[in-house]
């Protein structure tokens, strides 16, 4: 999945939270990506996945504690596999993957301009806004804030 409208969004589910990323930073969406856990990596690194000859770092936002205002208790019950989709994003020169469920283009949405709007459990510092779509609040993630917080450098190391 590449290209699309310049201001398009891709929506996905992280646990119970509906989130979205700007389509401009998304390179493709991979189904059942075959993530290999890497011992010694950060807890929010689900592992790496081979993608076009590159070892793509794969991030699980449910495991990234600073992203949440309260613990993600029960959002991925024991034994349930990781989300089946990998959203491959570009951040500067670096490619990374974000795990997500129910990935789809977000075509019908409206901004929630009320500053008192509840972002749910996601911390506002990682958001560039809140949207409403299909009766549900969608947290619009800010890649410029989120990806560096995950430890992703904009330049290859």
């Amino acid at each position, binding site marked *: 999945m590449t290209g699309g409208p310049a201001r398009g969004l891709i929506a996905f589910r992280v646990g119970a939270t509906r989130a979205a990323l700007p389509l401009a930073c998304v390179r493709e969406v991979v189904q059942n990506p*075959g993530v290999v856990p890497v*011992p*010694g990596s950060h807890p929010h690194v689900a592992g*790496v996945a081979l993608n076009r000859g590159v*070892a793509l770092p794969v991030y699980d936002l449910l495991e990234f504690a600073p992203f949440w205002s309260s613990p993600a208790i029960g959002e991925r019950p024991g034994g349930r596999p990781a989300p089946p989709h990998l959203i491959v994003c570009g951040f500067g020169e670096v490619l990374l993957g974000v795990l997500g469920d129910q990935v789809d283009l977000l075509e019908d949405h409206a901004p929630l301009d009320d500053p008192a709007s509840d972002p749910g459990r996601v911390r506002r510092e990682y958001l560039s806004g809140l949207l409403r779509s299909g009766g549900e609040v969608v947290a619009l993630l800010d890649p410029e804030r989120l990806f560096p917080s995950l430890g992703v450098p904009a330049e290859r*190391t």
Partner: protein
Amino acid sequence: MVSVGTGRYAVAADAVSRIMDPAQEADFRREAPAAEAVCGGARFPVVDLHSAVGQTPGPSCVYLVLEGGGGRVVVPVDSAEAIREVPAASIAPLPSFIFARDRRLFRGLFSDGRESRLLLDEGGLS
């Protein structure tokens, strides 16, 4: 290719200077408090790969003597299974920023049939 618990990993064959089987080495012994192995009068630091990857050792182990960047280390594995030719260009380096510590156990990833396999970083072990 080696197995560690239920996991399979790759070790660069040219980094393996010796494979020791305790059942065949009369003077082999592990000194647990110092995390060392002694064989033929030589002492080797032991890297506990089972613990690092969250596995428990099987009933028998073989010990790989690896030549790393800073010297020799011994790595117990459950078995050393096969030698496979993997072109260097097929090994994707792991991004350094995913690691929680400077010392890392793995350095690469490559396709091994239907699965992807991690390559041990012999230089980071010693």
